[in-house]
């Protein structure tokens, strides 16, 4: 088993609380979210409904509301909240407590992206 690679993408304070920013990766654009209680999540920046940029939505609790047609997506599972259906790919992220750096792991990403299709 190869060790996981964690890539630093910036500090947690680079993202406003209840906000998001995007990260450009070789896999496409990801959205990185920070909730009111400083949890961090990463998903692909594409709504399963019609491709809306989730990084531009309103973040509330552990979810984001898509800016185009208001579907609500749970950030930890990537699942669209009922009654709508669908799912976005999520990516592992962690915050280094000392430096407050956000690190992203893309190792499992291709598998995730496929699973979402």
């Amino acid at each position: 088993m190869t060790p996981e690679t964690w890539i630093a993408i910036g500090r947690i304070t680079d993202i406003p609380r209840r906000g998001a920013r995007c990260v450009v990766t070789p896999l496409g654009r990801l959205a990185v979210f920070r909730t009111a209680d400083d949890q961090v999540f990463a998903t692909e920046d594409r709504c399963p409904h019609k491709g809306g940029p989730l990084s531009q939505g309103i973040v509330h609790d552990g979810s984001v509301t898509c800016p185009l047609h208001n579907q609500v997506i749970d950030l930890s599972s990537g699942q669209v909240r009922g009654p709508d259906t669908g799912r976005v790919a999520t990516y592992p992220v962690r915050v280094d407590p000392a430096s407050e750096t956000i690190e992203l792991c893309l190792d499992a990403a291709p598998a995730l992206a496929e699973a979402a299709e």
Partner: protein
Amino acid sequence: MPQKLVVIGNGMAPGRALEHLFEKAPGAYEVTIFNAEPRVNYNRLMLSPVLSGEKTFDEIITHDDAWYASHGVTLHKGKRVESIDRAAKTVTAADGTLAPYDKLIVATGSTPFIVPVPGHDLPGVLAYRDLDDVEKMWEAAARGGRAVVIGGGLLGLEAAAGLKAKGMDVTVLHIMPTLMERQLDPAAGFLLERSIAARGIEVICKADTKAILGEGKVEAVELKDGTVIPCTIVVMAVGIRPSTALAKAAGLEVNRGILVGDDIRSSDPDIFALGECAEHRGMVYGLVAPLYEMAETVACHLAEDASAAYKGSVTATKLKVTGIDLYSAGDFAEGEGREEIVLRDASNGVYKRLVLKDNRILGAVLYGETADGPWFFDLLKKQADISAMRDTLIFGQSYQGGAPLDPMAAVAALPDDAEICGCNGVCKGKITGAIAAKGLTTLDDVRAHTKASSSCGTCTGLVEQLMAVTLGSAYNPAAVKPMCGCTDLGHGDVRRLIVAKGLKSIPAVMQELEWKTSCGCAKCRPALNYYLLADWPGDYVDDKQSRFINERVHANIQKDGTYSVVPRMWGGMTSSAELRAIADVVDKFAIPAVKCTGGQRIDLLGVKKEDLPAVWGDLNAAGMVSGAAYAKGLRTVKTCVGTDWCRFGTQDSTGLGIRIEKFMWGSWTPAKVKMAVSGCPRNCAEATCKDVGVICVDSGYEIHFAGAAGLDIKGTEILCHARTEDEALEIIVALTQLYREQGHYLERMYKWLKRVGMESIKAAIVEDTAKRAHYFERFVHSQAFSQKDPWAERASGSVAAHEFRPMADLTLREAAE
């Protein structure tokens, strides 16, 4: 790959079928709908309350645009399908739009029958089928005079009551000896005629129309007996014919309606015929309940559940004329071996009749007191043996089992499978089950989850009683609609408590008012942010994370994630310098589209988010600021050329428009605010469909407000007349401030007016000049904090820079490695 499903006709039946389909097999079909009517799906049953003004069209919409968007449905509004090519499996609309299908639903409904008497094609002869007909009736009603309604059935009587409510004199002509003879026996028909006449509507039975008279328009109706009734419109409501021409031309088997089997398929297995256009086991239905059952069967078959079968229905009718209670179900003709039980209570205007055979109910007619209708209908459908309660049967359910029960106990005693909502076939158990399982507490919740009471609404009382029985004291029928799922308080209470308790931040509001979620949702946060901003100018710090993206980045998000940029063009005036700067920006940033908007300015579309600050910087340099085309705030002030150029201009309309826009830009409001100033009553700036409009006249300025021309079309109301430009400006500003302080978030001015009433607005703005000055001052105070160009702040890089740049670019890192 989803299959392609095409639907012809966007009426009540296919609407219901799609709801079931999306529930059963989400994503299985890519749906395209063609509708001859230029609008979304609405509850046709409720056209009569819309006609009479008891409801607005908005309130009867079943699926709004967002619903179609969220299910990925393409809806072609106003496109009539002209042909079906079954070999190529395509349909083609009148304008040439073509759509291929794997499965097709023909749901073309019915066409009103127009009696071909001489004069039937004169302007002013109307049918009663859709919103267009209602609008034509309103137009006629606005002119006044007499309406003649031909046909004394359900539709004709509802039309007559609606036209009467709109102020017309109304005569109903009915060819049979009594009204609604297909649903009522003569005795009930007579009682009905009496109460219709008591509302000032003239009823003439046995009236045989000979001709409609008039030169170029309807002027009178002539009967065969020589009577001539002068009138300005004629509404024909004599019956409907299934719309089958399209299906016939496509070679489908058609009798009275399009022939379908128990699977609702037509003679072509890939084509379903659904709704009033279909004929099943010799029956063509004209009421929704059976159509909804058919709809469910269609959805099952589309979702590959081949076991579903529709077996036909018995129907019940209620007349929806406020104040008249009438219910009829089944068959009540006299016949061999039939018995009847009749109850008359003349002093209370009550008449009830049951027709029985072999101790089972065949038909029921109830007049004046209809609460037991569903109970009788239930016994009828189940063909229950009533011999045990025969003596007391006619007194209704509450008399069964000894002492009379109170209505609540009667509802509580209903069996779980008793039908409560006839239109949607919802039984008691389903409602009480949903209330318990999903924790429903409001009527709207119950409607959303069970569909009960969401069609004709006549079972609303029963549903409310059920809620009271199930929820006990937890049910409060007077409860206001909560802002969203995070709170039980409505917008009005929240606004009031923010001021009363001096709450000055979103967390404070959520804490004090006991929000149920940790940090709100996308519905309540933008509303709270606006209320706090409007109520505490200068104190409250705008919470950017509680704003919708457009207001957060001051540009409109587009469907591909790019943005549009609309600079202000004060009063619609521009100059060569501004146009040159716009042209340069377009070239420099390779902006793909430039468009004149409907609001007299220019839209640059398809700007990349990263480019926004630089685009704004360049526009700022040429003196332009944000047009706020995204804002719940002041949008545009349209003007016409006025006295500057126009030979009819009475005042400087362009100048006043610019003055208003420069005074008011930057302010936030509950919903968007659009204004216009026209130089004379020819009204070239379309001021009479704006939130605020001014019509200049020789003697000064007519101030109009509360118009709209979007989802609803509504002409403005006149607020008052102002003599000078200064006075006009003060009134407009004060009016806007009153709206800023009272409006509910996303409630446009016309809806605010409807809620608070003209009197209270006039009292504050027109009649009390001290109050008016006060509101004016408050607006001016709040402008000190909000009249800052958001583009300039961001172009400088000092505000919200993180919005416009990715946090990291890992593709660069990869390339470097």
